[in-house]
């Protein structure tokens, strides 16, 4: 479904801070895959999502989505084909608009934005139903401005909004990292529910190894712009922390020690 072939990306080219992040990165994502991606800081996890979503351009290589080349497509065009939830909860919603207005905007994705009424009153019951499945009472706050919501509430709303139109590809960029453990758990459960129900091909970057092991059908471990561990199928289902750590060490990850600390 999504093919990354032979991607090259260098940051700060020609300066002392030059970083050759990707030197021929390739990845094949199958339809319906739910991939979790872990790795230390600077491993290139978020950059990978940025390349796919078009936030940054690769220097070389190609990105194919459903066999069409989207390598250098502008970000807003690519956005029509995929959805994304950011780490920063304020990035997925418009703060000065109400929940209803935000959801109406998102519900219209892919259609024309013309001169018909912006707030979609006809879909109120659908919006309330979608919100009630989170179980944090957002369905009673349709007319509340999003700027008055907490980070967790905004992130839940962002997730609902980005998946409302059933995108083909969902990119989750550490979308629970800025939340407290309890809220993070709510968002993770909601993510699992939506992705399974709607069968959306998903790539989720996370710092939480429990989530990476528990969720999805495939796990990637990245280090310095390379994919060093790629677990899928039955092996992924039987994965435990101990097995994963052993794989890290076998792959020669110097970060394995610090990653082990993440588990505690």
């Amino acid at each position, binding site marked *: 479904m999504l093919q990354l072939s032979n991607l090259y990306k260098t940051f700060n080219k020609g300066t002392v801070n030059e970083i050759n992040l990707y030197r021929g990165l390739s990845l094949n994502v199958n339809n319906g895959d739910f991939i979790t991606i872990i790795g230390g800081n600077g491993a290139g996890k978020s950059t990978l999502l940025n390349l796919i979503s078009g936030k940054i351009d690769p220097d070389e290589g190609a990105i194919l989505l459903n066999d069409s080349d989207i390598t250098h497509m502008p970000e807003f065009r690519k*956005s029509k084909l995929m959805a994304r939830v950011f780490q920063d909860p304020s990035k997925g919603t*418009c703060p000065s608009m109400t929940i209803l207005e935000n959801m*109406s*905007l998102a519900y*219209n*994705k892919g259609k024309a*934005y013309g*001169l018909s009424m*912006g707030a979609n009153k006809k879909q109120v019951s659908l919006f309330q139903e979608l919100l009630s499945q989170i179980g944090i009472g957002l369905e009673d706050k349709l007319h509340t401005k999003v700027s008055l919501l907490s980070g967790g509430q905004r992130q839940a709303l962002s997730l609902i909004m980005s998946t409302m139109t059933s995108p083909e590809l969902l990119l989750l960029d550490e979308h629970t990292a800025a939340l407290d453990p309890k809220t993070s758990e709510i968002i993770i459960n909601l993510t699992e529910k939506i992705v399974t129900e709607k069968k959306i091909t998903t790539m989720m970057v996370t710092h939480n190894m429990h989530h990476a092991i528990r969720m999805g059908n495939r796990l990637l471990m990245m280090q310095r712009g390379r994919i060093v561990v790629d677990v899928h199928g039955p092996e992924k289902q039987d994965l435990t922390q101990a097995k994963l750590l052993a794989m890290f060490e076998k792959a020669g990850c110097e970060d394995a020690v610090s990653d082990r600390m993440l588990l505690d």
Partner: protein
Amino acid sequence: MAQLLDFSINVLQMGLIFAIMVLGVYITYRILDFPDLSVDGSFVTGAAVASVLLLNGVNPFVACVAAFVAGLGAGFITGFLHVKLGITNLLSGILVMIGLYSINLRIMGKSNLPLFSNETIFSLDVHPLVVIAAFALVSKLLLDFLLSTKLGFLIIGTGDNPDMITSLGIDTGKMKILALMLSNGLVALAGSIMAQYQRFADVGMGTGIVVMGLASIIFGETLFRRVSIMLPTTMALLGSILYRFSIGAALNLGLSPTDLKLVTCVIIVFALSAGNAHRFTGVKRLLKGGLANASIK
């Protein structure tokens, strides 16, 4: 009494003409968060286009529409410089403002264009206030309507959180250009009405328009912020009238018209800093309880 009535009508007329301009500035300054200085130029462009057309015997209402369209063009250039050529928002506005000065002179042919006996929108058999109020209200209601539509939501969202609008598959650059066009269109329309009202267009009549617009917006917001059901465009409209009122009052108190720009700046400084009142707690205490109470640390 008659003097007071004259004064009030005059203030209302000026306030409502400028209110159309203030609505335009509101779009860029508040919705888009884009400090657009090109309005200083497009206000005159509107006046110049309308005046030249009137001198050539064109219907005054057609002249107003032409002025609006000229404003759309000016806004498009500002947007193009910023969005497509990557020039910062402030500089894009300044460049267009300066460039328009020459263009306005070209349109007018000389620096001052009097409209002696030409037909204007005020030649109708109704009080000028009615004509002005109609223009201001229609502009406001159309803007209110636009901002409640899906397209309007995109414009609001572009100022609010461009990442979110991009994620919907929308080019925020286009939205910015659209909003800038609309803003400058309204400002040029205000300029064309102003020229007809005072019966001349002058190449210098746009100086300080953006500051005047900001002052009116801030005035309106500071006074009516707590009225939660009031639309921001209504606040801008009332702010414009109140601003004109205070200027009129300052003139009546014997201030010279040439001092007005300084007065405007002082008003803005006070209104903006009033929002940061916590910085003045020492001063407040001083005012309340005298020196002994102040204890500024």
